[in-house]
């Protein structure tokens, strides 16, 4: 009985505290520009959500320490209000509403994953809150006529498009046989759409088309089918879990395919976790540290890589790099708009044309970034078993030649 009374007292005290403390933020407080962001700190996207948050934090710290943002002759610093969207679109939509109407945030950064961005975009659009997002690549985001949504990344359907075209080219221009397995979520399904388009254009045939449930961590059935059907290209996309599971089971089941194309290799730390087994995997990426883009905050990809590693203790996957770039875009837009008026900032964002360490950024009317191509890298290991991601396409940045076809397991 006594414990119960303590609990009741404690709980009611907290309830009182919580219900009375509705803090309201303003868009610009003192010398701070406050941005709102919902990122996935818990749930199935939590690893990539953390990459996103680290990317944002890194850029905030860098911009603030290098003089901040100059608007109307005054210097402002960035600050971000974070919420945890729990990898759940319902929560993300709710949080967008909450950031805008309760916390009075006037500028937003995007969450991780296409599904969550799809849930948030209608809300930000309705309130006319400019949102620069770095992790929602679904093509359908950019066909809706959203005026306040800007994505620094290339749309998802382009992720593995290059891989298919390369495979067709290496096949002497003839169509190839494709086997694909994609997770049942907005992003992966959009990558799938890109493959479908590419297959249609190149006259390729899709012989296996599996959709993996979100909870699945066993792809043995799909891979067994692949072994029987012998496709020319195997495409797998399912965030980090998909990439890790695929490589493990491909190696264990000794599945021989001439080309293996995937997404999320660097976020999954593929070469570190799987070592030599991940060799020859071809990965789509928005960014790679060896690209030669430059800017004045992070200098270039290599420096960003080194600084990020120093700050967070691991090498930045492209999810972090693109998130950092989102803040650079915001800073640039604020300075060009020279105002905190949402409409003016929006117009400035729409007129963005800049180069960052992450790539050139220029938005199409739909909001997607059109001036940055995707890169493909291949995991290549040396004889000592040390593996590295080497860019193989586009040729402009290629630091290694694509190894094709992948040697059979019996010959490795």
């Amino acid at each position, binding site marked *: 009985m006594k414990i119960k009374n303590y609990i009741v007292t404690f709980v009611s005290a907290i309830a009182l505290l919580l219900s009375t403390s509705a803090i309201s933020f303003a868009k610009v407080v003192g010398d701070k520009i406050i941005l709102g962001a919902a990122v996935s700190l818990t749930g199935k996207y939590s690893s990539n959500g953390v990459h996103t948050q680290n990317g944002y934090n890194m850029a905030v710290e860098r911009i603030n320490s290098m003089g901040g943002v100059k608007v109307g002759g005054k210097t402002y610093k960035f600050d971000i209000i*974070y919420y945890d969207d729990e990898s759940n679109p319902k929560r993300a939509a709710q949080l967008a509403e909450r950031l805008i109407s309760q916390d009075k945030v006037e500028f937003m950064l995007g969450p991780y994953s296409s599904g969550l961005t799809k849930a948030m975009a209608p809300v930000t659009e309705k309130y006319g809150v400019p949102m620069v997002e770095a992790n929602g690549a679904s093509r*359908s985001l950019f066909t809706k006529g959203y005026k306040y949504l800007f994505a620094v990344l290339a749309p998802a359907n382009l992720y593995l498009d290059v891989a298919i075209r390369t495979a067709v080219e290496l096949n002497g221009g003839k169509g190839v046989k494709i086997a694909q397995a994609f997770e049942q979520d907005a992003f992966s399904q959009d990558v799938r759409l890109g493959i479908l388009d590419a297959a249609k254009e190149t006259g390729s045939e899709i012989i296996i088309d599996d959709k993996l449930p979100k909870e699945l961590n066993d792809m043995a059935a799909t891979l067994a089918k692949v072994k029987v059907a012998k496709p020319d290209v195997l495409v797998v996309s399912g965030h980090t879990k998909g990439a890790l599971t695929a490589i493990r089971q491909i190696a264990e089941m000794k599945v021989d395919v001439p080309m293996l194309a995937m997404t999320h290799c660097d976020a999954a730390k593929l070469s570190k976790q799987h070592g030599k087994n991940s060799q020859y995997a071809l990965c789509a990426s928005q960014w790679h540290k060896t690209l030669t883009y430059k800017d004045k905050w992070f200098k270039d990809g290599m420096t960003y890589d080194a600084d990020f590693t120093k700050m967070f203790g691991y090498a930045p996957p492209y999810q972090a790099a693109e998130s950092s770039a989102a803040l650079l875009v915001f800073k640039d837009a604020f300075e060009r708009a020279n105002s905190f008026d949402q409409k003016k900032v929006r117009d400035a964002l729409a007129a963005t044309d800049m180069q960052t360490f992450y790539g050139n950024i220029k938005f199409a009317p739909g909001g997607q970034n059109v001036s940055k191509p995707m890169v493909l890298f291949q995991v290549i290991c040396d004889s000592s078993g040390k593996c590295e991601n080497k860019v193989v396409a586009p040729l402009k940045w290629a630091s290694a030649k694509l190894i094709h076809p992948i040697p059979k397991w019996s010959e490795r």
Partner: protein
Amino acid sequence: MINKNLIIYLSILIFGLAAPFVFPAFKVQLSILCVLIILSITWNIQGGEMGYNSFGNILFYGLGMYLCASVQVGMFFPLAEWTESGGEKTFVHTPAQFFQGFGVGLAVAAIVPTIVAGLIGYSILGLRGHYFAICTLGLGVAAGEISGGIEIIGAGQGFTTPPFPNIGGLEARGEFFYFCSFITLVLTFLAVKSIYSTRFKLVLNAIRDNEDKAEAMGIQTMKYKIIGWMISAFFCGLAGGIMGGLVGYIDSTDVAFDGREMGVFMVLMAILGGKGTLWGPVIGATLFHIFKEGFWTFFLGWQYVALGVLIVVIVIYFPEGIMGWLREKYPERFGEVIDEADRKAQVELK
């Protein structure tokens, strides 16, 4: 006594009607609160009054959500094209189409789950105890996984519901959905309250207390169980339809058939407030929502730790809920006359 109750109801009603204008920033939160209360009240019909702990009411909620959105789209545009390639093509509802579609959608969202509940009721409600709980859990999860594989409702890419038409300014959307959910809540509450004052509730309680005896007394328990479940399904479906419009994006396992969150929360809220009471679920849902939102803000990332501890504490120390606790403390207020000596004797016996 009647007067007193009337005053309480009236003041709640006035508060509810004025809330979106007094706290304009909290409209969405309040709408979600209304939906949570509806879910928790309807769960209580089975879990509290009938003793059938269902984890499967989320089935009706999700069904309502998908149906409402599909009807709203399908009435005016081809549904398959709307959802094709993740909803790439854009169709715009005129305001009249939007509201008309939403209204019909809600009606369908209420009726179809009710029919579904009636159809599967005979099979599922024949299970008892935890077998019923687990069977309904399976039903909810299966529905989520299977709907995630159906192309016409967006499959893995989700289903973007029609955007609110551009009328009435910024606040119109929030107000519309708030009043939708508030009115549904009032209707649900009144319906459930009037049901609870009839013999029907006594039958449900008899089933809870001893189903075999109830049957031996000539009550057709199965009929009542199915009707009870159908009532729940009706309001769950409505709540789902409104929530779908409010969120604006439907995902099979995370938004619609969200058994891991909504499905369990509706149970928790009812238990927190006190199951088997009329007001318990209302109080439980309100407190739960405040708690959750608060933890969210102040313990970023730790909210699940806090929630986990809260759940364990609730179930271990307050299995009777707040209403049960109040009843134990102030039995007079609940119209119970207790002989103090008798009570003491009982306590000592324990």
